[in-house]
């Protein structure tokens, strides 16, 4: 059997650590369903991050060692813990935090991101619809980062010229972290900022339908 050989790049855990590394001390960060839910377990010494869960919890940490509390879950309904500074509130206050611009960042999963920063992450046409809080978060947070595989399960690029799936939000994405690379929208232009270890910008070309410019953060260290 012949398959396209695509590099694997970062594991899911490595990707979570990579994203966590870019969080800024003191930020209030919403984590969406899927890969972003791994972030609260990536505590970094010297950085205090307040993780926000859409249904009304703030200050959540990793899964508990002991008995889980059914009333302390993340947005994916997995058991988590409450850290110092934790607060509970109703869903309208939770989305007031999001829409009102008090989230420094939300990290969302993605099905497709266009080269204009459009995000599609809630519906594969013909599939089961479910939007959750993604549209509110995409519209409200100060920054939107997307964490996703570089290719979909069939090997198609998820960074596209246009999203072919229904949008979550238009022009909302600030950064995309994939298993292969980190991209940033710089003045609206998709820009390669970093390659995963062992990955070269040249390799990314055929794996990325979207047009991108290259302006690496650390020119000397990226390979």
């Amino acid at each position, binding site marked *: 059997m012949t398959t396209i050989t695509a590099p694997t790049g970062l594991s899911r855990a490595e990707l979570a650590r990579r994203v966590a590394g870019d969080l800024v001390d003191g930020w209030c960060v919403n984590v969406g369903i899927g890969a972003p839910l791994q972030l609260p377990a990536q505590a970094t010494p010297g950085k205090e991050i307040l993780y926000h869960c859409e249904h009304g919890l703030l200050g959540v940490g990793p899964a508990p060692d002991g008995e889980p*509390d059914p009333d302390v879950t993340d947005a994916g*309904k997995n058991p988590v813990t409450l850290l110092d500074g934790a607060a509970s509130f109703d*869903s309208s206050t939770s*989305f007031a935090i999001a829409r009102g611009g008090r989230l420094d960042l939300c990290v969302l999963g993605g099905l497709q991101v266009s080269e204009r920063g459009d995000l599609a992450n809630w519906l594969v046409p013909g599939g089961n619809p*479910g939007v959750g809080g993604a549209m509110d*978060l995409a*519209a*409200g947070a100060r920054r939107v980062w997307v964490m996703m595989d570089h290719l979909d399960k069939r090997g198609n690029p998820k960074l596209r010229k246009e999203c072919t799936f*229904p949008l979550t939000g238009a022009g909302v994405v600030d950064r995309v972290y994939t298993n292969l690379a980190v991209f940033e929208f710089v003045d609206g232009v998709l820009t390669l900022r970093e390659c995963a270890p062992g990955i070269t910008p040249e390799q990314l070309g055929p794996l990325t339908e979207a047009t991108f410019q290259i302006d690496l953060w650390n020119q000397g260290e990226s390979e």
Partner: protein
Amino acid sequence: MIDKIRPKAADALDSVHNGASIAIGGFGQSGVPLDLIDALCDRDVRGLHIIANNGGRGLPGERGIGRLLAENRVSRFSCSFPVNPAFFERYFSGEVEIELVPQGTLAERLRAGGSGIGGFYTPTAAGTVLADGGFVVRYGKNGEPEKTLAQKERRVIDGRTYVLESPLRPDFALVKAHRADRYGNLRFRLGARNFNPLAAMAAKTTIAQADQIAAALDPDDIHLPGPFVDRVVATELEPAR
């Protein structure tokens, strides 16, 4: 004397009728008024318009929203994250209509309904099929789309596009509280609060189940004041602290 406590869930639900609209609190398995939903199923009401964030998981013997859907009691479901495979089967076969609402918009529409607000403008969903229209609300029996969402009214405010959203004002709300008193004052517990106070505010008649009944709550410890609550049922008779 004010006493909203009812001895049994069945008594508290005696006015719920076929075709009623009912907002139900809960997020995933947390804060779902399971005992009230069981009593609702026991009443055998059907053709309901259910407003709830999640649709349960579709597991055998499931309680909660999943039971309402499994027993085919729901003709219209307003939600953000239905998930339940049994629900989707009914949706694609035209047995149930969906109103898919972004989670924050769902919360705000309930709050608006409970606050006498006639409508509000939100940036959420602008530029998507949930605001510009096109999302399939109901399929026909033949599996083809029968009804799609109409375009919502848009308005540009300070250079940004907003969407007009309407309040939700259901006939009933079923909510789960942690602690209640005879005045209907409620206190919730951690992530179980979620949509519960908002559903309670929105409804014309609100029925709460509470883990504990307290003689009195500290005024500053109350998360939802009693005027929004009509009836209270104790579900676990834990001693109040």
